[in-house]
């Protein structure tokens, strides 16, 4: 009890220091803080100090309430596992065993995880799925650990990191080596990778590699029911699809699964080899005949003043935090982007009991499905088209934002600026295919905006320009989970067909390709359809 009391006072001190730092650095806009504008009179200093103690006590109380205890769709009690403790900069933090460092810290009210390398600006996580380097921390003496995908362990020593680590600090992998041989190696265990594995494993030995502690990719946070055809699990929630696919994969004797392992490179010694790092300490050499890359995508960001403040998160990152780990991102959210991701995540925020102040969309029309927009609107959330965010403000956390109306030329209309009181800003402004590994392999790329940017050239059977290397899912061009699953199946069968001739398998692949075409019909399938057509034309 005495101990927790001390931490309590420390917390108050921490918030107090943050406030002082904020006032010295950015005295201008303070709409986010109800007491802020009053605190500037020096004669009233002592009084306001007392007021502040109450304010920070309240903030701390709010921090404690970050964990979701009830949810209309999810049950976290079973998922969380038992309580454990680790230290953050010497301070003891209590958390649950089945969560990541970043989620445990967020639940404890800590948003600043690292400092940027040049200007030492405070950084929180951004993607929460290991794609960006915003959350790197030093863990048990090892720097540059992605705290968003690393699970906490009892007694773990976590320290915040200023900038990037120097080479001397890095602990090179010594000694521990493993070798795996397989027929088809699949990199990335999301909807595409899982589907590819299940199809390919009907005929070949498969190795499925993922850098997360669990399979399922981004399906594990999709609490909404999927669209698409009944055949392809429509009307089933993404989380349930993930559960089913993962179970099938784990039970399949032809599939070996390698988790917590990042594939860091490819090399060709008259056979295909992949190098992976497992558990941050073991080098794994993978010899394989065929490779399917299904590494997914990363969330885009947007340029505006203070866009790196902790509390500005990718919409998908917020989904991970609240739907996978049961931690609320904050209390009041501004959502930027009214595509399907922005609309769906806004609705899921409401389900978690978080207030969505409004959704802004720079385009003149809502990009996502009307059914998603309608769900939000009838809960009273405004969607402002032709609006965008101008700036965020705060010190080490978001305390508000200014939104503005845009004219026909995408320029802010003077006099339409509005300050809104939010503590989280979600960016749902599109995704970019994760093609780093494919580029290292030597695959040529083409810039196709309809597919989310640079994509690797591949044919309709999903084979790249390197024979025996296939792509599937978002890394082959941004789409949806239902099309990713179909692509995965097609790529899996293509890999199989390159090793054997079989009319039955060919027929099945043709059927799947037809199904994929069906899903991409209609106005919402136009972008991926046009994008893929452009891409197929680029195949030499």
């Amino acid at each position: 009890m005495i101990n927790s009391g001390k931490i309590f006072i420390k917390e108050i001190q921490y918030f107090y220091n943050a406030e002082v730092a904020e006032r010295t650095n950015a005295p201008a806009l303070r709409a986010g803080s109800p007491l802020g504008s009053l605190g500037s009179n020096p004669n009233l200093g002592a009084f306001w100090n007392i007021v502040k103690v109450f304010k920070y006590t309240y903030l701390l109380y709010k921090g404690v309430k970050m964990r979701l205890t009830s949810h209309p769709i999810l049950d976290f009690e079973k998922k969380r596992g038992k309580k454990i403790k680790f230290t953050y900069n010497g301070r003891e933090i209590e958390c649950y065993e089945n969560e990541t460092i970043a989620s445990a810290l967020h639940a404890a009210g800590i948003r600043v995880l690292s400092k940027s390398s040049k200007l030492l600006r405070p950084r929180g996580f951004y993607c929460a799925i290991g794609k960006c380097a915003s959350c790197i921390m030093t863990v048990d003496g090892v720097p540059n650990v992605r705290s968003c995908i690393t699970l906490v362990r009892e007694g773990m020593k976590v320290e915040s990191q200023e900038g990037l680590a120097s080479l001397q600090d890095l602990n090179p992998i010594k000694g521990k080596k493993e070798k795996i041989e397989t027929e088809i190696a699949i990199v990335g265990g999301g909807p595409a990778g899982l589907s590819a594995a299940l199809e390919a494993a009907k005929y070949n030995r498969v190795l499925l590699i993922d850098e997360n502690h669990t399979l399922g990719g981004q399906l594990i946070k999709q609490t909404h029911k999927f669209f698409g055809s009944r055949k392809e699990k429509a009307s089933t929630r993404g989380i349930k699809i993930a559960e089913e696919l993962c179970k099938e994969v784990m039970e399949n004797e032809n599939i070996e699964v390698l988790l917590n392992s990042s594939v860091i490179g490819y090399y060709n010694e008259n056979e295909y080899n992949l190098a992976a790092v497992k558990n941050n300490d073991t080098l794994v050499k993978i010899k394989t005949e065929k490779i399917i890359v299904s590494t997914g995508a990363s969330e885009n960001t947007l340029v505006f003043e203070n866009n790196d403040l902790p509390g500005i998160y990718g919409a998908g990152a917020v989904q991970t935090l609240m739907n996978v780990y049961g931690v609320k991102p904050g209390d009041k959210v501004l959502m930027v982007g009214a595509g399907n991701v922005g609309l769906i995540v806004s609705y899921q925020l409401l389900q978690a009991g978080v207030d969505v102040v409004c959704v802004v969309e720079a385009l003149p029309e809502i990009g996502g499905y009307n059914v998603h927009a309608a769900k939000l609107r009838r809960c009273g959330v405004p969607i402002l088209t032709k609006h965008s965010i101008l700036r965020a403000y705060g010190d080490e956390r978001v305390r508000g934002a200014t939104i503005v109306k845009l004219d026909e030329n995408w320029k802010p209309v003077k006099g339409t600026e509005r300050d809104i009181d939010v503590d989280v800003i979600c960016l749902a402004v599109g995704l970019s295919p994760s093609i780093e590994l494919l580029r290292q392999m030597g695959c040529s790329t083409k810039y196709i905006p309809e597919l989310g940017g640079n994509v690797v050239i591949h044919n309709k059977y999903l084979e790249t320009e390197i024979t025996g290397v296939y792509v599937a899912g978002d890394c082959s061009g941004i789409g949806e989970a239902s099309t990713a699953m179909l692509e995965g199946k097609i790529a899996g069968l293509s890999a199989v067909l390159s090793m054997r001739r079989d009319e039955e398998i060919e027929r099945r692949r043709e059927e799947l390709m037809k199904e994929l075409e069906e899903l991409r019909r209609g106005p919402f399938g136009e972008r991926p359809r046009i994008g893929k057509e452009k891409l197929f034309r680029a195949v030499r």
Partner: protein
Amino acid sequence: MSYKEDGVLELKDLNLPSEERLKKGPVAVFECVENIPCNPCVDACPFKAVSMEKITDTPKIDYEKCTGCGTCVSVCPGLAIFVVDLSKEKALITIPYEFLPIPEKGDTVKALNRRGEIVGDAKIIGVKKNENKTNTVTIEVKKEVGMIVRNIKVIK
């Protein structure tokens, strides 16, 4: 302002059952106006009242076959189907509901329109807790707001 700009459907955007059919008894109202690739409602209907040629078509409803049983309400991934009964003194509406707290039969809650504005009170007539966690709630509201109320706010 069109629904593309603000997300709110107006009655003119919808393909509604005839007034006669609405007066006859419960019937499904589909608020699904875009060509999205989705078809679970077709298989869900036990009376084969919903059809679709291509998966990207909007659903076509045979209102003579539709009994207003409400099976489709909880199946629709877009939560875009409601059952409306205008045959009685008051309007009965069945809505999909995915929030907490779940209201109980007999409770009085706030009735919200498509903009989330409170337009009066609603009495909970029935709550069906479904396995897929999209529960269906039947409410009773004033007849004149039968085609306007599409959500509830439960304050406990």
